[in-house]
C-alpha cells in the first residue's frame, strides 16, 4: 500500500515528528511504500541542518535525512510555511535576498500542491500534529 505522511509540528517540542518517523519505519518494514512526507506549519522546522541536539538524544533531522537517502522517501517542506519560519534552500536564498541557507540533505521545498497530490495519489494519508 502507498502511504503519504503529513507532519505538522517541529522537532522535539511535540512527539508528532517522532510518531510520524516511527510509523514510516514500521510501514516500510511491512513492505509498504511511503510516497511522500509533507512537512507543513511548524513541521518545516524538521528540515534544518543547523540543529545540534544533545549527544544522548535522538537526532530528528538526521533520522529523516537517512530515510530519504536509504529508502528514497520524498521529503517536502511547504514553501509558504518555510518563508514564515526561515527555512531556506539555495533557490529561496537568492529569490528572497537572504545571506544563508539552512535546509538539510534529502529535503526539498515546494508548494502545497505537493500535499494535495500526495493525498490524491496515495492510498492513505496519515497526519501527525498537535
Amino acid at each position: 500500500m502507498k502511504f503519504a505522511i503529513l507532519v505538522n509540528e517541529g522537532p522535539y517540542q511535540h512527539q508528532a515528528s517522532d510518531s510520524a518517523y516511527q510509523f514510516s519505519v514500521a510501514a516500510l518494514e511491512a513492505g509498504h511504500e511511503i510516497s511522500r512526507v509533507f512537512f507543513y506549519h511548524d513541521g518545516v522546522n524538521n528540515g534544518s541542518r543547523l540543529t545540534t541536539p544533545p549527544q544522548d538524544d535522538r537526532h530528528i533531522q538526521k533520522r529523516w535525512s537517512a530515510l530519504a537517502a536509504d529508502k528514497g522517501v520524498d521529503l517536502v517542506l511547504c514553501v509558504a510555511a518555510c518563508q514564515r519560519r526561515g527555512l531556506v534552500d539555495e533557490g529561496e536564498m537568492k529569490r528572497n535576498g537572504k545571506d544563508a541557507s539552512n535546509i538539510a540533505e534529502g529535503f526539498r521545498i515546494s508548494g502545497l500542491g505537493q500535499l494535495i497530490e500526495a493525498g490524491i495519489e496515495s492510498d492513505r494519508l496519515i497526519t501527525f500534529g498537535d
Partner: protein
Amino acid sequence: MEDEEYTGGIEKKIIYVNRRAPHGTVYALESLETVLIGAAFDQDVTMLFLDDGVFQLKKDQAPEALEFKNFSKTYRALEMYDVEKLFVEQESLAERGLAQDDLVVDVELVARKDVGALINDQDVVLSF
C-alpha cells in the same frame, strides 16, 4: 505555484475538517490556503466546520489592530473556485451561542449524529 495543474486523472473526495478558532493559531488560514491551491486539482472538495471551527466563519472579524490578515472574506470567494460544499455542525453553533445569521457565508447545516457518515463518505481527510 497557484497555477500548477493536475493531470493525474484521479478524482477523490477530500474533506477539510476545521475545528479551531481563527487567529489563536494559524490553522484556519492554512486550511483556506490549501483549499485554494487544491482547487487547481479539480477534486470533489468538502469543508466541514466543527467545534471552535465555526468561529472561522463569524462575521465582523477585525484582526487588523493585531496586524493579522483578515482572511474571513475569502470564504465568500470559495464559490468561484468551485468549492461549494460548506458544512457547519448545528450543535457546534448552538453550544457557542451562534446562529447561521452570524456567519459570513451560506452554509449547509449538519446534525452531530450525521457527521460520522459525512466523513465516511470521503476518500481523504485533512484536519486543521
